C-alpha cells in the first residue's frame, strides 16, 4: 500500500550552515490493513516521515509510492485526491480555529462530498465516540489540550480513510483517554484500515504486540513484526 524507497530528508540550517539530516536512507513497506508503530526519541524523524507521506514536504532523495503512484509525481492540484484517502492526527492538532468542533469534522466530510444527511448523522456519532459531544459547538481555542487531541483524532477518522497517520495521538492524554484512543485505533484497524502510529509511549507499544519500526537519528535501526520498544 505504502512503500518508501531510500528516503532522505535534509534541512538546510540557517544558523551555522551545517544541514540537519532528518531522515537518512529510510526504506520500508507497509501493507494494506496493517497496524504499524513508528517509535523513536523526539527528533528521530517521525513527524518528518508523515509530512513526506502527506506530500506536505518533498524528500531530498528517494521515492514514496502510495499504491503504484509516486506521490512526488502528483500535481499540486491533484494532491487533494491523495490526501482524502489519508486521515491524519497531527501532533500540533491543526484544527481550523475559526470553526467549531462540529464544523471541523463536518468540513472534512464536506470536502469528501458527503451529503448533509450523512454529515448530520456521522458527526455526532464520532463526537460521542471520542467523548466530545458537549464540546460540539465550542471553538478549538475553548478546548483543553486533551480535548483538542481527541477532536483531531475524530477528524482523522470521520471520513473512513484507507490510511490513518497518527502522530503522537496520546501525547496530551491521561491514561484513561490514552487507552480509549488506542482501543479506537485498534478497532478501526480491525475494520480494515491501515494505521500508522508514531509514538514514544513505551508501555503502549509493548502492550500492542504489533509491527514496530524504530527510528534513531533519521535511520531505521529495527523493523520487527510483534516488536517492542527498545532504544
Amino acid at each position, binding site marked *: 500500500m505504502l512503500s518508501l524507497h531510500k528516503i532522505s530528508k535534509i534541512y538546510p540550517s540557517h544558523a551555522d550552515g551545517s544541514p540537519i539530516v532528518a531522515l537518512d536512507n529510510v526504506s520500508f513497506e507497509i501493507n494494506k490493513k496493517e497496524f504499524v508503530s513508528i517509535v523513536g526519541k523526539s527528533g528521530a524523524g517521525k513527524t518528518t516521515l508523515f509530512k513526506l507521506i*502527506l506530500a*506536505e514536504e518533498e524528500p531530498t532523495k528517494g521515492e514514496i509510492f502510495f499504491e503504484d503512484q509516486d506521490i512526488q509525481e502528483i500535481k*499540486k*492540484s491533484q*494532491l*487533494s*485526491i*491523495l*490526501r*482524502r*484517502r*489519508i486521515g*491524519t492526527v*497531527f501532533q500540533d492538532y*491543526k*484544527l*481550523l*480555529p*475559526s470553526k467549531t468542533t462540529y464544523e471541523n469534522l463536518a*468540513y*472534512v466530510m*464536506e*470536502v*469528501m*462530498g458527503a*451529503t*448533509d444527511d450523512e454529515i448530520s448523522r456521522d458527526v455526532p456519532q464520532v463526537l460521542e465516540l471520542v467523548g466530545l459531544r458537549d464540546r460540539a459547538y465550542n471553538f478549538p481555542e475553548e478546548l483543553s489540550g486533551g480535548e483538542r487531541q481527541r477532536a483531531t483524532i475524530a*477528524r482523522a477518522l470521520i471520513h473512513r480513510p484507507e490510511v490513518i497517520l497518527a502522530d503522537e495521538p496520546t501525547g496530551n492524554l491521561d491514561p484513561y483517554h490514552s487507552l480509549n484512543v488506542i482501543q479506537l485505533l485498534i478497532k478501526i484497524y480491525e475494520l480494515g484500515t491501515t494505521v500508522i502510529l508514531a509514538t514514544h509511549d513505551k508501555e503502549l507499544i509493548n502492550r500492542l504486540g504489533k509491527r514496530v519500526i524504530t527510528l534513531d537519528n533519521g535511520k531505521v535501526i529495527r523493523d520487527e513484526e510483534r516488536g517492542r520498544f527498545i532504544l
Partner: protein
Amino acid sequence: MFTSLKRIIRAGWTGFYRNPGLTVATVFIMATVIFFITTLFLFNLVSGILISNIQEKVDMSVYFKEDILSEDILAVKSELKGIPEVKDVEYVSKEQALEKFIEQHKNEPVLMESLTEVGKNPFLASLNIRAWQASQYEQVTNFLADSSFNNLIEKVDYYQRKPIIDKVFLITSGVNKAGIFSGIVLGMIAILIAFNTIRIAIYNSSEEISTMRLVGASNWFIRGPFLIQGIIAGFFATLFTLLITFALCYGFDSKISVIAPQISTFALFISNFWILVLIQLTAGIGLGVISSLIAVRKYLKV
C-alpha cells in the same frame, strides 16, 4: 456541484460575520476606496459642467458694414450654420444692439449723453457665433476670411478676444488632463491600500488554509469562501458608500448652488444613480475578489 457551491457560500458568510473586527476594518477601507473613486467620478461630471459653462460664455461676433441688408446677413447666418464647428449663430440687428446697450448702461448718464450726442444709431448689425469648443473659433475665423462674403464684414472681434479664448482652452484641457492623471495615480494608491488590507486579513488564515489543503480540500473549495467574503465585503462597502454619497450630495446641494448656481449635486446624484451603483459595485466587488484571489494563492502551495 450545487452542494459545494452552497457550502462555499455558507462558509464565506460565516467567515464574514464571525470575525467582526477584521470585517469592519476591511469594509471601511474598501468603502474609503469606493468613495474615492465615486468622488473622482462626480468631480469629473461637475468639472465637465463647469467647463462647458465657461465655454458657453465664450463667443465671437462678426460685425457687418453699415449698409448691408439684413437679408444678406441672414444668408451668411444660414451658411455659417452649415459648418460643423458652429454650434449656434444669433443675429443681432442694429436696433437690437442699440436696445441692448441702453438696457445695460441706462444708469450711466455719461454714456447715455454721448449716445444722444451722436444723434444716430452708432451700432453695427452682427452675428454672434458660438462654437462647440474654444479651439474651434480659429477655424470659424479662417472660414470667414476665405469666404465670398468677406467684403461685407466690417470686423471680427475674434482677434481681440483671442487671448481669452486661448486661455479658456488651455485651462479646460489642463483641468481635464490633471483630472485624468491624478485620478489614475490616486486610484492606484487607493487600490493598493485596499489590496493590502485584504491581504493582511487573509494572512491571519494562512495556517488554516494549509490545514485545509492537508485534509484534502480542493483549491476551489478553499478559495471559494474567501471570494464570497470579498464579495460580501464589497457589497456592504458599496451600500455604505452609496448612503454617504447620497447624504453628501443632498447636504451640500444648497451650499454648492451658492458658488455655482448651475450645479445641483443632488440632481447629479439622482440622474447618475445607476451608473454610480454600477461603478461602486464593480469597484467594491472587483477589489474584493481580485485581492482575495491573489492573497489566497500564496498559501495554497502546500
